[in-house]
Each structure stands twice: as C-alpha cells, then as structure tokens.
C-alpha cells in the first residue's frame, strides 16, 4: 500500500473548521488517481497531507493517521518525505530553480542538493528526461520552453528524485490543450514503473480517460472513490458539484441504463452505447 489515510481529520492552525474531516482511503502502488471536487472541497489540503507538508510545514491539528508505505508521516523527517513523495505545483515556474542554464542541469539540480554522486545523477536525469519525453530538449534553456515542455521538465526534476509517490496539484492549469495532453500522457505512462500518481484536476474529460480511480472530495470529506465509469455514473454527481465528461452526461440524459454497458466517454463508445439503447427497450 503506497498511501493510507485512516480516519484523518486536519485543522490548520488558527482555523475554526477542519479542512479535512474523517477521511479514510488506500492508494495502491502503480496506480493513477485523480482527485476532483469544487473549490474549497479540500483537494489541496488532501495533497498537503499526502506529501507531509501538513503538518510538517503547514501546522495544525492532525487526528487519525497518514501513512506512506506503512510509516506515519509524523514519524518521517521532511528530508525523508521528499525522497518518498514528490510534489509538483500548479505553476511550473514556481518549481524551477532559476539558476540553471539547461534542461539537463535543471533535472540534476535537485539530485545534487540531495548529495547523490555524479554517475547516479547522470543515470537518473537521463531516465527522467526519457520518461517525460523531453530528452531531445536537454540542451535548451528552461525559460525558452513551451508551457507543456516546462511542466514536463518540472515533473522530470521531481521524478529524478525517485519518489514512490508523485502528487500533482492542477499541473495543467496554465497549459493549452496540447500541453495538457502531453502532461496527461506522460504521467499516465509513468505508472508502469510502479510509481503511484495522485493528480488534482478540473479537466474531467482527460481525467476520465487517463486515471485508474477518481476520488471525489466535498466539504473536506471523501464522498466517492472508484473507477471513473463507476464514480461518474453515480446520480450524486450533481450534488458533488462536479461535471461529467460531455458524452457521459449526454448518454445519461438520453436515458442510457447500466444494462447498455459501460458509461461512454469517447465518440465511438457513445455511438455504441446509444445504439444499444433502443434495442434494449424491447
């Protein structure tokens, strides 16, 4: 088990209400999880707990337990945490060191700070650049990259530290559609290596087709967890203030039932699902 929360409640120092209330969940190694929910639902607070930033850095009162590979985050130092859980911010700009002159140096930067020996740094940097599909950009100046390339560089820099869990908080919010697809595809491809990925996003069309499971947060509580088709078929979707992918929503509005097969996300799936509809009538 990569990550576990057991009856976890967290109240930031100075706040009167908990940001996270009684959340229990289990995230398995090598899976890609999407966290969705409206603004203020607790998505970022959940990330803060998963990465140990709360309560290590952002102080507050923690009830229950958060465990990374079986060890409570309160028993790990911040140094031990960053090598286990990588955190990618919304804006890749905030993540850059701003002291390096090439993509390759940027990826090596974090590793040098961890005191890793040169040969190993080279191997890891090479691997991370390849996984994110930016090896051919190795000599480019980081600030000359496109948004999608820059965000993939941010992910590569974190990945090179070989965390077992990668947490990304709205990593594509600054990106155009193409850059967004690049990041989703690169991240989805990484789980093959056993990496657990947790991503907060609003872009439901892409989440639905890329993640293994969706977690829905509402007012600090975890209200649903399951495969995208399972979660998005739930009639409570409207109460959770989230959107369905367009064609899933349309299929349900047209009276598609579970008997008609899985909830469609893409055009092909939709055509099959809806053509089945009329036949199922008799």
């Amino acid at each position: 088990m990569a990550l576990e929360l057991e009856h976890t409640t967290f109240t930031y120092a100075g706040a009167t209400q908990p940001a996270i209330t009684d959340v229990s969940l289990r995230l398995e190694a090598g899976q890609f999880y999407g966290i969705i929910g409206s603004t203020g639902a607790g998505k970022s607070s959940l990330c803060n707990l998963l990465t140990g930033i709360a309560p290590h850095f952002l102080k507050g009162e923690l009830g229950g337990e958060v465990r990374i590979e079986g060890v409570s985050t309160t028993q790990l130092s911040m140094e031990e945490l960053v090598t286990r859980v990588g955190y990618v911010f919304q804006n890749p700009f905030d993540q850059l060191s701003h002291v390096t002159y090439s993509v390759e140096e940027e990826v090596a930067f974090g590793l040098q700070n961890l005191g890793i020996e040169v040969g190993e740094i080279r191997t890891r940097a090479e691997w991370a650049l390849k996984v994110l599909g930016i090896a051919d950009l190795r000599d480019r100046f980081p600030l000359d990259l496109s948004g999608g390339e820059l965000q993939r560089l941010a992910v590569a820099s974190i990945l090179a530290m070989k965390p077992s869990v990668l947490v990304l908080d709205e990593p594509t919010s600054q990106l155009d559609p193409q850059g967004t697809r690049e990041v989703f595809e690169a991240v989805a491809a990484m789980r093959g290596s056993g990496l657990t990925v947790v991503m907060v996003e609003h872009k439901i069309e892409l989440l639905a087709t890329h993640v293994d499971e969706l977690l829905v947060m509402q007012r600090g509580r975890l209200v649903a967890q399951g495969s995208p088709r399972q979660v998005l078929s739930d009639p409570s979707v409207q109460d959770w203030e989230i959107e369905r992918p367009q064609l899933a929503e349309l299929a349900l509005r047209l009276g598609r039932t579970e008997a008609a097969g899985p909830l469609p996300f893409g055009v092909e799936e939709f055509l099959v699902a809806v053509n089945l509809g009329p036949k199922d009538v008799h």
Partner: protein
Amino acid sequence: MFIEVRDLVHRYPTGTLALDHVNLGIDGGEVLAIIGQNGSGKTTLVKHLNGLLRPTDGAVCLNGEDIRERPISELARTVGFAFQNPDDQIFRGSVREEVSFGPENIGFERAELTDAVDAALEALGLASYRDDHPYTLSPALRKLVSIAGVYAMRSDVLVLDEPTTGQDLKGVRRIERLIESARSRGTTVIVVTHDMAFVARNFGRVVVMADAHVLDDGPPATVFWNLDALVAAGLEAPAVARLSQQLEGPPFLTIADAELRLKSRLSAEAGRHSGEERRP
C-alpha cells in the same frame, strides 16, 4: 464601439514575432472568443486593445480613431481588461474596496459607484464575500474578484484573459452569467480561452490563432467543423461537436442541443423498432 485591428504587427524586444499582420473587425456588442495554443499571439493581440502593448507596425482603431497616442488611463474607460493572474491586479483590503477601485479611479460618482459595484458582486455571486480580505479567498474566488473589478467599470469593451482557468463548475457558471449580463447591456465581450466547451456554449464568434496569425474566424458551428485549421492550431472541438460530426443533420455544439436532437431521433428509431416487433 467598432474595433478595427489593421495589419497589426508586434515584435517583442527579444525578437519574437508575436503578431504578423493581423486583421480583425469587431462590432459593438459582439461576444467573441479567441482560441489557440500558448504563444500563438492571443494575449499579445488583446493587450493592444487598451494600450498595454503598442503596435510595432499597423494600427488598432476604436470607432475609426487610431489609439496609438491615447494613454492607457484613458483607454481603460473604454476597454476593461481582466488579467489571467488575478494577483497582478489585486491590492486592496476588502472585496468591496477592491471592486470599487477601477470605477472610483475613472470618476464614478458615489451612487453610480455603489450601483456598479453591487451589480458586479451580484453577477459573480460574490455579495457574501464583500467585507472579506481578498487574500483570505481561494485563488479561484480571487480571480472572480478581479473580473468583478473590471466589470464594475462598465466599459464599452470587456476583455477577459483565460477567465475559467482554475474555476470549478460553479465558478464557470458565474463567469457565464457575467458574460450574459454584459451582453444584455450591449457590452462587447472578448475572451481568450482554452476551454472549448465553454466557447461552444457562450460565443457567437470564434477567432482561431496560430503562429502569430488569425487562422480562422467565424461562428462556432463553422470553426469547430474546420478540422484542418483546428489541427494546425493544435486544438480539438468539444466532444459533443465531434459526435455531431459523426452524425447526419445540422450541427449541434452543446449537451442541451445534442439532447434535444438525439432524443427525437432515438424515440423515432425506438418507434420504428417496436413497429417491426409487432409485425408477424
């Protein structure tokens, strides 16, 4: 207010050519979306409309007058501009004060000021936050505050740069309500966005930009069907439009339209099927 962008060229000091002879006419009261990849020239283009950037060559005219020499302070009355990053423009102690700043600055009298600020807060669903400090709000709400501040100036033209970024479903609906209310006042609304479903639901005209040029310009039912231009611009029509492209009949662009169209089609087919069933 007629906006004319004539042979507009903009080259940044770094040498990057961001706009390469762009021509565009926008009528008063039009509600228009500009789409395209990062770096295609969208933001550079709209920053010329209120003098934040000046042409390297070519011109921007408002009602036929070249605005080259007009100061930003004056243009701000005509063209309101909400930045992509709200923190570029938020600096006051309460939401109400923050939203008042723009209209106050261009000389709104007290009664008109109160009226404009209240209307803006109302339109964006921010009335209950009026006394809060902007920095106690989430980034998504702060963005709505910055948009409200620009809307409250009641300029003839309202420019929003990626307003839906980081917004949840409720936030997007609030922005849609604001656009609707601006439209009903006769305001010209120009929105730069990456959200294609949002474009399909709210805009009568879509301008597609790629590599410093305008690649396509027309109603969404034309633009989202021009696949060559979309592919060249690295874009994709919303899922419902892509479905429509696979089916016969007139185009549909939104879930609501699709539902109407397909419901009647499905019930017609179901009727035919049950008719067949009854045949011996």
